[in-house]
């Protein structure tokens, strides 16, 4: 887990969101602007705070899906008694999901569609 959350990544991510200079990457920071009026045109006390800019950029629906789902999973691991049949079904359904995402989407529809089509007719 430490490898995922190493400091340079967090600095790079925040630098895009908060429009601050970033020395750990050659990528230029995002130009964040207000909906009606660029923040540089406003007097300092009316400029949006960095936190507000971050909040404006969050895709709340995606964030909810990606936090509530693991939260329910963690609750289940701690509280719900695992039944053998359910766990077996969960493993089978996991394989089903991964087949669609990792082999249907890339192999047929992105990367390998020519191969697939030429051999399936």
């Amino acid at each position: 887990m430490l490898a995922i959350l190493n400091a340079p990544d967090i600095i790079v991510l925040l630098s895009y969101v908060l429009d601050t200079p970033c020395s750990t990457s050659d990528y230029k920071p995002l130009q964040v602007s207000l909906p009606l009026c660029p923040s540089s045109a406003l007097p300092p006390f009316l400029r949006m705070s960095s936190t507000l800019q971050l909040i404006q950029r969050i895709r709340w629906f995606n964030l909810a899906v990606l936090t509530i789902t693991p939260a329910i999973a963690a609750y289940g691991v701690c509280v719900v008694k695992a039944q053998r049949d359910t766990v077996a079904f969960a493993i089978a359904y996991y394989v089903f999901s991964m087949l669609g995402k990792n082999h249907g989407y890339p192999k047929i529809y992105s990367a390998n569609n020519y191969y697939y089509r030429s051999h399936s007719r």
Partner: protein
Amino acid sequence: MCSGLSHFIGYHRLWSHRSYNATIPLQVFLLAAGASAVQGSGYWWARSHRSHHRYTDTDLDPYNGKRGLLYTHIGWMIIKSDKHSGPSDVSDLKKDRLVQWQHRHYFPLSLFFGYALPVLVPGLLFDDWWGGVCFSAAFRLALAHQVSRFFC
């Protein structure tokens, strides 16, 4: 790009089902499986993924590696960026009626295959509703999200 058990099974399945008759049912199966992973419609995903392969690690790559592991793992999903995916040729997918149907009805499909079905099956068959909610729906989906974002 992808690895492990499902790599083997996917290749095996795709390359062993070459008959035209198997194509439509196989596509339906894979589109249903794709909806169950709750990671976007096949059309949306393939469009982004083609941009990613065409413009790897540039401003036009939706998961540009130069923006850091945290961004390519999860940031691109939850933060609106000013950089947009570069154009890619998806004319074949626009003509594909199955892919377009899944794209149009993606939200209810992912709700059904991602959450409802994995709750209903253990609930109705084993009378284990909470196990369905927590393990085959939430735990399975959270694991699929994390794993496929590392490998794809």
